[in-house]
């Protein structure tokens, strides 16, 4: 049976992880390769690396990091942050990334989704959507959720699917950081309507939230950062809980 995926997300700045990490086993809490290896060994199903520097001159540092990660771990990983051209994608895939994630670039130039899918295959193109609810309507936001657009989230999700995205990473900015649970209503609406997998992000605070996002939210995968980094929830513990709750999970 196909299982639901648990995906830790690492924020990278200048080749180091940022946001706190609290792993006692880590010699160096900032080393993304070491952290990636721990998550991989603990049973994470995939990893996402989000480069928050994302300036052109820092790209080389990112590529070197991607190569180190690719050599060290044996599970799939996605790299995102500031990717806007075919050349960016080529560079990161050649460095060893399995998938790339695009966000603002796709909003500004939707054709880039078609072009990237045609060049590299849909399987490695993840489109990240940041959404915020404004007076009861869900709108796509860019620039880390700061800039509003006039795009309705549901319509944009359909469009990126039609243009050849392989997966959607949907982050609710209203839920992100609250630890009060995922935006299950919107996730269920989008996941049910689309033929491609949806990765839920924003709001994870307890193990029950993961159960809810897979059952009520109909998500195919769930992503979280700080609750894993601070060991509030361990991956083996989370997977054990989900398995007992009847969620299909890789042991």
């Amino acid at each position, binding site marked *: 049976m*196909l299982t639901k995926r648990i995906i830790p997300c690492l924020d990278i700045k200048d080749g180091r992880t940022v946001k706190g990490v609290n792993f006692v086993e880590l010699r160096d809490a900032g080393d993304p390769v070491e952290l990636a290896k721990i998550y991989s060994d603990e049973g994470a199903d995939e990893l996402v690396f989000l480069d928050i520097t994302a300036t052109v001159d820092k790209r080389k540092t990112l590529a070197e990091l991607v190569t180190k990660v690719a050599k060290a771990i*044996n599970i799939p990983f996605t790299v995102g942050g500031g990717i806007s051209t075919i050349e960016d994608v080529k560079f990161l895939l*050649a460095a060893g990334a399995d998938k790339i994630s695009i966000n603002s670039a796709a909003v500004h130039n939707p054709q880039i989704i078609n072009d990237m899918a045609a060049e590299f*295959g849909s*399987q490695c193109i993840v489109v990240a959507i940041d959404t915020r609810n404004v007076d009861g309507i869900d709108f796509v936001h860019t620039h880390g959720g700061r800039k509003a657009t006039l795009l309705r989230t549901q319509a944009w999700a359909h469009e990126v699917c039609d243009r050849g995205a392989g997966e959607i990473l949907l982050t609710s900015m209203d839920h992100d950081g609250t630890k009060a649970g995922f935006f299950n209503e919107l996730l269920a609406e989008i996941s049910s309507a689309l*033929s491609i997998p949806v990765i839920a992000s924003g709001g994870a605070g307890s193990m029950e939230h993961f159960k809810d996002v897979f059952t009520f939210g109909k998500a195919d995968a769930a992503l979280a950062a700080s609750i894993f980094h601070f060991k509030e929830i361990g991956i083996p513990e989370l997977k054990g809980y989900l398995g007992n709750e009847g969620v299909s999970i890789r042991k």
Partner: protein
Amino acid sequence: MTDVRCWVFTSGIGHLTPDNKMKIAVIKYNSGNVQSVLYALERLGADAELTDDPELIRAADKVIFPGQGEASSAMRYLKERKLDQVISDIKQPFLGVCLGLQLLCEHTEENDTECLGIFPVKVKRFVPENSQEFKVPHVGWNELENLADNPILKDLPANPFVYYVHSFYAELSEFTIAQTHYIHDFSGILHRDNYYAIQAHPEKSGLVGEKILENFLSL
């Protein structure tokens, strides 16, 4: 269910000493990213070379045919370089991965493409009856079931999980040595003579995938 994290390798590739390494040819063609296959082989201590040179492929101890991408353009590329003949004539252990499995079959529905025909098996597109429950592509970790007694499956836990990303599948056949269920059963791993093929990505399938690659290298 066996917990793979507690599960240790009992055999190594002990005969791979630095001065007597076997040569692994990884076939280079116009498919997607093969870097992860090369890194996985490097982790296993194998000496792998990415090549489309027929002589190097014929001279290798083992050949791996990786792939991600589209079938008809991949077949055209192979034919232009006469690699279709090289692959059909090869006598040493040969492993097709993902699109590599599909191209070793007889025909694929992907752009109605005639393939290499090593396995007399048809490759079809997943057609979900209910898109809410079954999405295409089939992405993520799923189980290999009904494992045959075969050296490439040696020392694996029961129903091991492997990582899949694909929209087309090979039907079950007499050459199926492990199957997976998604919408319906399909061939997870095929074997005929010196040819092996796996639909999942062993290079991305954790310890299970490493074990399958290691078993292949030990054939």
